[in-house]
């Protein structure tokens, strides 16, 4: 097959591309230029020059062609603008998931298919298993690296043209393999931060874009003003750090953000037990295979590295009438009743449903209840 291997400049995508080539595919490496930051001098913007160079050197060593695709406009529109708007609305978005949904397995995949490629290969840790019932997306065997959560937004026609080569591997083995292959990125540290916020200070990054909006921090139970903030948009439910509270808590117990009201620009804090939720409602579902309906038990995960929890799922307003149109399910809503209490869930996070290791689908949390 003709395979477009996305090369980030990191070790995972490098080993994935190497495995694709070794499997006999005709592989072309593409580095995605996603964000443009002002160059130190000169008139043109350049993007993560070191990563681009590392990606190029990986392609050289694999003896495959290499190109840079400029996707920074698509990335800004679909990922960065969405990220800002979501925080502004008091939600907590996951930009990696958005990038997979609208860039890597959409804009890039579309272009690759049009240019004659058969599939896009990435260094994600997840497994694709072909069964008589269709292609299934499963968790990776390495629980520490499993990225099925951020891929759960992919639908059948996207998964059909995807290749994940690392789902059966442990990270240490991938590094060792990169080393054995002589890939210079073998020892490169993992990236943890949001790629367009290189210093990791999301609150400051948002403040640069949304401005300071001073407001009150209020005790959720007493209603007392216990502190001040520079913009409610920068707070996430469950957050404990970064709260400069004037009034000490009763009995010195830790206080968390328990609610964010962007309309009144108020951050509510309280004890950990106020964070407990029992039901989640989520909208805008994406199914990896045929959409499910009715009521069923599944495990649910609400964060990239969160615990999977058992739950009962009810599919509401299920108005799928036409089997061959996967796009008509936007009216559906999931009600997820947890079998155990979960703490600190924010609107905007994705609720991903699993059956064992298999991903069923993903939807965006829009409400929670104790």
């Amino acid at each position, binding site marked *: 097959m003709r395979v477009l291997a996305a090369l980030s400049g990191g070790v995972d995508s490098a080993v994935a591309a190497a495995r694709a080539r070794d499997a006999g595919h005709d592989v*072309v490496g593409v*580095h995605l*230029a996603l964000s443009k930051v002002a160059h130190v*001098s*000169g*008139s*043109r913007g*350049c*993007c993560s*020059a070191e990563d*681009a*160079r590392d990606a*190029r050197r990986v392609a050289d060593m694999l003896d495959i*062609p*290499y*190109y*840079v*695709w*400029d996707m920074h406009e698509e990335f800004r529109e679909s990922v960065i603008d969405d990220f800002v708007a979501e925080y502004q609305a008091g939600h907590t978005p996951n930009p990696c998931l958005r990038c997979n949904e609208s860039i890597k*397995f*959409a*804009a890039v*995949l*579309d*272009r690759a*298919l*049009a*240019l*004659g490629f058969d599939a896009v290969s990435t260094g994600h840790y997840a497994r694709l298993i072909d069964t008589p019932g269709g292609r299934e997306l499963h968790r990776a065997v390495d629980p520490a690296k499993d990225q099925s959560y951020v891929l759960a937004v992919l*639908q059948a*026609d*996207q998964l059909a*043209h995807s290749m994940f080569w690392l789902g059966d591997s442990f990270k240490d083995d991938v590094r060792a393999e990169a080393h054995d292959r002589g890939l210079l990125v073998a020892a490169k540290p993992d990236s943890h931060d949001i790629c367009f916020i290189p210093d990791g200070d999301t609150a400051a990054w948002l403040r640069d874009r949304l401005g300071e909006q001073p407001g009150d921090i209020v005790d959720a139970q007493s209603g007392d003003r216990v502190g001040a903030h520079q913009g409610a948009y920068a707070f996430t439910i469950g957050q404990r750090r970064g709260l400069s509270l004037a009034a000490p808590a009763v009995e010195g117990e830790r206080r968390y953000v328990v609610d964010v009201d962007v309309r009144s620009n108020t951050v509510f804090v309280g004890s950990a037990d106020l964070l407990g939720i029992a039901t989640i409602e989520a909208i*805008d579902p*994406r199914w990896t295979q045929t959409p499910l309906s009715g009521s069923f038990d599944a495990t649910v995960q609400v964060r990239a590295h969160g615990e999977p929890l058992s739950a009962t799922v009810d599919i509401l307003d299920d108005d799928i009438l036409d089997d061959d149109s*996967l*796009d008509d*399910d*936007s009216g559906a809503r999931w009600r997820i009743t947890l079998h155990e209490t979960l703490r600190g869930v924010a609107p905007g996070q994705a609720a991903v449903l699993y059956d064992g290791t298999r991903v069923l689908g993903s939807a965006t949390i829009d409400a929670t209840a104790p």
Partner: protein
Amino acid sequence: MARRPIYLDHAATTTLRPEAAEAWLRVSHDVGNPSSLHAAGRAARRVVEESREQAAAALGVRPSEIVFTAGGTEADNLAVKGFAWAHEDRRAIVCSPIEHHAVLDPVEWLVAHHGYEVRYPAVDALGRVDVQSLEALLDDEVAVCSVMWANNEIGTVQPMAAIARSCRERGIPFHSDAVQALGMIPMDATLPGLTAFTLSGHKIGAPVGVGALVIDRDATIAALIHGGGQEREIRSGTVDAAGIAAFAIAVDHAVGEQAELAARLVALRTALVEGVLSTIPGTELQGDPGAGVDERLPGNAAITFDGCEGDALLMLLDAVGIACSTGSACTSGVPEPSHVLLAMGVDGATARGTLRFSLGRESTPDDVEALLEALPSVVERARRAGRPRLVSRS
């Protein structure tokens, strides 16, 4: 890849001339710093000075007017900053908006960091600087005017004599980046009013890493690199005898072979352009359609493919062994819409769909034939990719 590689990117860099390679290696084997006072130093210096004379004779300038540099970009920087800083009471720079980044970026840097004012003349739809518009910008505030001899992306030859005359009448130093012109079109280095021009070795078959700024001996220029005082204290640094020997012999050959090469490349280029425009719908030649050496660089064919992304075309051609270019690319490889086409009034989408094919000494009718054979299916595929949405999703 079954076919032999087809190289249609000679404006980016071209094949090393055997005679330049021979001189380069021969001189490299001899020890000796041209600035040293002993026999070995004198021998190296002799090579440098003989080379300077050889290049000067070919160009029709005085040997002392040639300042060797490490390439075209350095020579352009020297001209822009050197003339600006030599006339510090003058705070404006005039340059065309279609210059190579080796001129544009130092100008923009002077604006950003040294408070200079930049003035851009108008450029017409063929990519030619409007002389009247340029004249209106020339006053006693202008420290330097820089307009390239011929454009690297679309091949348009600029009205050198008229611009030089205008600058001369107003006593303004006039610099021209002649990197693409040398060896391709006739160059009158004695043009009245032409103060300095830039040459690059690797565009004419010398190695990368050597070039020159030819500066009128009466002109005043400030040095950018200070050190040992080499090259009339304009360009310090150990003089590269081997590179200069290769450069001089390449200049000599390039000038001597210019007329014959131009005639051959104009015929090849005409076949290429006519072949593309007549067989592929939705294509258009950018730049001057004239075939004269005062109109367009003989080897340049800049063609717009409607509904295509240039980088998709480039990738698909690369896959079948054909090398071309989308214009200037930044070092990370991100394609930008050409500032040259944008200055000509071309819209962004058209600019992105433009490829530059550039022919050189070794180009043959077979190369053009191979391109014409490969292009239709490549363009068809790129057009499909230009309007993608094959994966349905909500």
